[in-house]
Structures are given as structure tokens and as C-alpha cells.
């Protein structure tokens, strides 16, 4: 896709969702849309480090949790959420550097397990530290709704805020793909030794990316907390959250601009909506279907939904080529 095509697609998505947020007042559906956008951003953040930079992380909840806890801690001290956003992002970026600096020496699965270990340590710490609310977490006070408090009575407004972050993430990804850094990352992914031999500093490139994606995930975490108004260790730092984020990134297609958004759509439609629809029976039918669908997608197209989109486009192009004289 050309940049122009990407921008047009992004414009269409943004306009549609804005119309939905302002015109449609079904709180349940708007909640799902909000969750979808948050996960699209988280998936995109994961895609930067695990897709473009090729370092599969299973500990992304660490950064998500940073943002969420920042919001909760600021709210508990009557601080503005507008300060919590950059604070959470900064802490996440610093954490990313601290974790990434030693861990980028690890290859493949050793790195993945290390990310799990770090996130798990954070979860255990949050569960047991009084300053982080222990297992109870924080119930955030309900404030007068408005842009200043980042709390809204209308679900549509939450969708708008999340949409803004999503648009930012998409634009940033487009920028990354076309930047020097993006070029370096691709080179490293293909062959780290070869990249190093032409003077690409692999560790610096990965660290920059990791810090950026930590900050982005933290922003998503802050917005999530503003909407959930409850932050607890299991729900923000737990391994299931990390896996859900990674799944969103992969189901849609790694190292693609739209993959995470597609993955988030599938995740929300199946795991959340399907769970709400079928989970009431308690038979595990929702898990069965969700797991089954992942299996179908992955075994049919190991490169994810975006891969399917690519094949369709190629098929269309071939037909056009044939139709042309």
C-alpha cells in the first residue's frame, strides 16, 4: 500500500468511528470499540518491537500496567490525569531501557522468557507492595466528567480519546516504516551480523524502539485506567494480558501497519463479545471457539489476517493484469 492509500484508509476508519462515537449510544458496543482501540494500540506497540524488530515479547503488560498504575496513583492523590499520561509513559520508557539493555543480548526464546520473568516480578511486586495497593489495587474516585479529568459519562467520548491515540499510533508506524530506524530494524531482522557489518548499531536501534513502544503501551494503559476506574495487578500486569496483546499482534499479521488493528477486531469480537454471548453458560464454549479460530487462522495463513488481505489483493491484481490487453 502506498502512504496515500494508508492515509485514506486511516481517514475512513477515523471518520466512521467518530460518527459511531457521537451518534450511537449503545454503551456495551461502545465499550467494545474502546477495548478494541486500546488493544489495537497495544498490539501496534508490540508490533514495533516484536514484528519490526523481531524480538518476541510476552511481557508487554509491564508497560500497559505502568500507564494504568500511573493514572491510578495520580488519581489517588488528586493529580491530573494529564500529568499521569506523560509520567506513566516516561516510567515505561525508562523500564524498557533498563530491561532491554541487558536482555537484548538474549536470542529468541531466551528473550521471550526473560520478558515474562520481568513482567511476573512486577506483578508479584504490585500484589504485595502497599504503595501499589497490594492485591486490592485501586478503585479510582469518580470525578466530574470532562476533558480535564479525562472521565466521561458518555462512552462515546472515551472512544474518541482512544481513537486519537490509535490514529497517532498508526501514523507513527507509517513513519517508522519509512524512517532510517525502520530500515535498520528490517536489516537486523533479516541478518543481525550482516547489519552490524555495515555499521548498524543493533542494540541502539532495538533500545530506541523498545523505549518508544513502552511509552505507547503506557499511554494505552492510562486511558484504559481512566475508563475502567479500577486498576489491579492481575488485570493490568498479568501474563494473560501480555499474551492477549501478543496474540492481537500476530493474528492480524506481524510487521504490517494494519495487522494489529485487524487482530484487535478479531480479539474483541471473539474473546470479548463472544465471551459475553456464550460465557454465560459457563461451559467453556467461548474458549473452544476462540482457540479454534486461532488454530484455523494460523494453520491456514501462518502470516495472519493481513497475509490473507495481501493474497486477495494479489489475486485481484493478477486478474486486472490478465484483463489488461
Amino acid at each position, binding site marked *: 500500500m502506498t502512504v496515500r492509500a494508508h492515509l485514506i484508509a486511516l481517514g475512513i476508519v477515523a471518520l466512521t468511528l467518530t460518527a459511531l462515537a457521537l451518534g450511537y449510544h449503545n454503551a456495551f458496543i461502545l465499550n467494545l470499540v474502546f477495548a478494541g482501540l486500546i488493544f489495537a494500540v497495544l498490539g501496534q506497540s508490540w508490533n514495533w518491537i*516484536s514484528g519490526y524488530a523481531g524480538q*518476541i515479547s510476552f511481557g508487554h503488560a509491564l508497560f500497559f500496567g505502568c500507564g494504568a498504575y500511573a493514572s491510578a496513583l495520580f488519581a489517588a492523590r488528586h493529580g491530573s490525569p494529564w500529568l499521569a499520561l506523560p509520567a506513566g509513559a516516561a516510567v515505561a520508557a525508562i523500564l524498557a531501557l533498563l530491561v532491554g539493555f*541487558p*536482555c537484548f*543480548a*538474549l*536470542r*529468541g*526464546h*531466551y528473550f*521471550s*522468557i*526473560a520478558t*515474562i*520473568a*520481568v513482567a*511476573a*516480578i512486577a506483578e*508479584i*511486586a504490585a*500484589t*504485595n507492595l502497599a504503595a501499589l495497593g497490594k492485591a486490592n489495587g485501586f478503585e479510582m474516585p469518580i470525578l466530574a466528567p470532562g476533558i480535564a479529568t479525562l472521565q466521561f459519562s458518555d462512552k462515546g467520548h472515551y472512544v474518541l480519546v482512544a481513537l486519537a491515540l490509535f490514529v497517532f499510533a498508526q501514523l507513527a508506524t507509517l513513519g517508522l516504516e519509512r524512517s532510517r530506524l525502520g530500515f535498520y530494524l528490517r536489516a537486523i531482522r533479516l541478518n543481525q551480523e550482516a547489519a552490524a557489518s555495515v555499521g548498524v548499531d543493533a542494540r541502539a536501534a532495538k533500545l530506541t524502539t523498545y523505549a518508544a513502544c513502552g511509552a505507547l503501551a503506557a499511554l494505552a494503559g492510562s486511558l484504559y485506567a481512566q475508563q475502567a476506574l479500577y486498576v489491579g495487578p492481575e488485570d493490568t500486569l498479568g*501474563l494473560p494480558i501480555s*499474551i492477549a496483546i*501478543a*496474540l492481537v499482534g*500476530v*493474528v492480524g499479521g*506481524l510487521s504490517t501497519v494494519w495487522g494489529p488493528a485487524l487482530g484487535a477486531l478479531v480479539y474483541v469480537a471473539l474473546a470479548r463479545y463472544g465471551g459475553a454471548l456464550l460465557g454465560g453458560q*459457563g*461451559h*467453556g*464454549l*467461548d*474458549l*473452544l*471457539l*476462540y*482457540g*479454534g*479460530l*486461532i*488454530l484455523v*487462522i*494460523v*494453520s491456514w*495463513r*501462518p*502470516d495472519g489476517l493481513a497475509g490473507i488481505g495481501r493474497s486477495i489483493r494479489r489475486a485481484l491484481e493478477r486478474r486486472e493484469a490478465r484483463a489488461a490487453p
Partner: protein
Amino acid sequence: MDVGPLPQLVVSGILTGLLFALISVGLTLIFGVMDVVNFAHGEFLMLAMYATFGATLIGINPILAVPVVAIVMFFLGAVVYRVLIRRLLAGPPSAVVFGTFGLLVFLQGAAQYLFTSDYRSIPNLPFQGTLHFGAVNLGEAQLVAGLGALLMTALVFAFVEYTEPGRALRALSEDRVAAQLMGIDVQGMNALAFGLGIACVGAAGALLMLTYQAYPRIGTEFALTAFVVVALGGFGSVQGALVGALLVGLVEVLGGFYISPALKMIPVYLLYLLVVLVRPQGLLGRR
């Protein structure tokens, strides 16, 4: 000198470690040959526990059930390889990770659907007593499971090192292309390795039924520890899994006692991080 509960803690740590070894051997075997991290490993453990429960329902002795379940699980593993894993291996590396994760969700859902979320344990189990050595208490069931772990590790090690198919597996894990050129049937060997790995976890599940209950989520309780154990020991190294498991067991029990039970997993994760930062290939892994 009064060492207090230290001897007991060390013994408990070793037995706990052996339990982890039991679960980890199959995982590292699959990784060694195929470079596949099987995220659904815990779910196969869960299936094996239900299978053992079912076997005792039809009158099979729980100890006899160990080889029976292992054989059944071997074939299940081979089938799963043929139907699913083979396709995943054709895709990018991430496909395997998420394919096996999809399998995890699917199997857990299936277990909840078919068996409900009730806890199942075998009535009138053997080995429920405790042996006493001075101040040290040893659960018989733990001891049996521990011996089982040692025996299984030894068997797998002997198989990989000293038998013809084992050598082929090793050749495959060292250099896939060369092995292919030498005429090794890669698909067949992969199916064998995956089947063996699942058979190991099958035996583990059967032995675990001596002390634990089967329920749909039991696999997830152990899987994470198994991953850390295998990575700590070095992916693909059978001896590494044993050493890693013993270390994790000891650190978990000693750390739990001397620091705080609520924090007992922190020293385990720190140990992993520390080891791989010094030795990025794990304790006994190859570069």
C-alpha cells in the same frame, strides 16, 4: 549447631524440583529437535491427568496407568504433529508460538466443556503415607513422582544419546539441512520427537495424579514454571532441564521460607535472568 528446618527445606526443594523436572523433560525434548516452544504443553499435562483419572475409573491401577497414559499420549502427540504442528512449521517462527497458544485455549475450553470445571481425584490412591528420617518428612507420593522423574530423564537421555533414532533426532537438532541430505526422514523424526515429548508429559500427568487433582486449568499452574526451568537449563538439553528444575525447586522453597511465601517466585525469575545474562544459552544449552 541447630540448622532448624533447613534439612527439611532442602529435601522438599529437591522433591519439588523433581516434580518440575518431570513436566519439563518433554518440553525441552520437543524444543531441542524442532525449535518449537509448545505453549500447549500444560494442556497436554491436563489431558494426561484426566486420562489417568479415566483409566482408574475402568479399574486400571494408578501406577500401571503411567505407561498406558504415556503410550496413548504418544499417539495423540504424533497426530497433533501431523495435523497441526507440521503446517505451523511451514510458516514464520511466530506461527508456531501462536498455533500452540491457540491449541492451549482450545484444549482448555474443550476440557471445561466435556469434563466441567469440577476437581477430579482418584479415590483410594496408593502412596499416601509419609516417611520419617529424623526431623525430615518425606511424602511417599512425592518420592514416587521424583523417582519417576529421574527414571524418565535417564530413559530420554539414553534414548537420545545411545539409540539409532535418537542419534537421528540429535543430528536433526544440530543441522537440519545436513540431516536431510543424509537421508533422515525429517517429518517422521519430528512426529517421533513430538510424540515422545507428549508421552513424557503424559507420564508426568499420571504421576501427578498421586498428589494433585485434575481440573481444566491445572496445566497453566505448571506451564510457566516449566518454561522457566527449560530456558534456565538451556532449551533442548535434557540434563539441563533436570538441573534447572532442581535449582528452581530449591530456590522456590528456600526463598519462600527465608524471604516470604507470597514473593517466592521472585527469586526464581531473578535466578533465570541472572543465569541467562551470564550464559545466554542457559546452563547446559548449546550456542
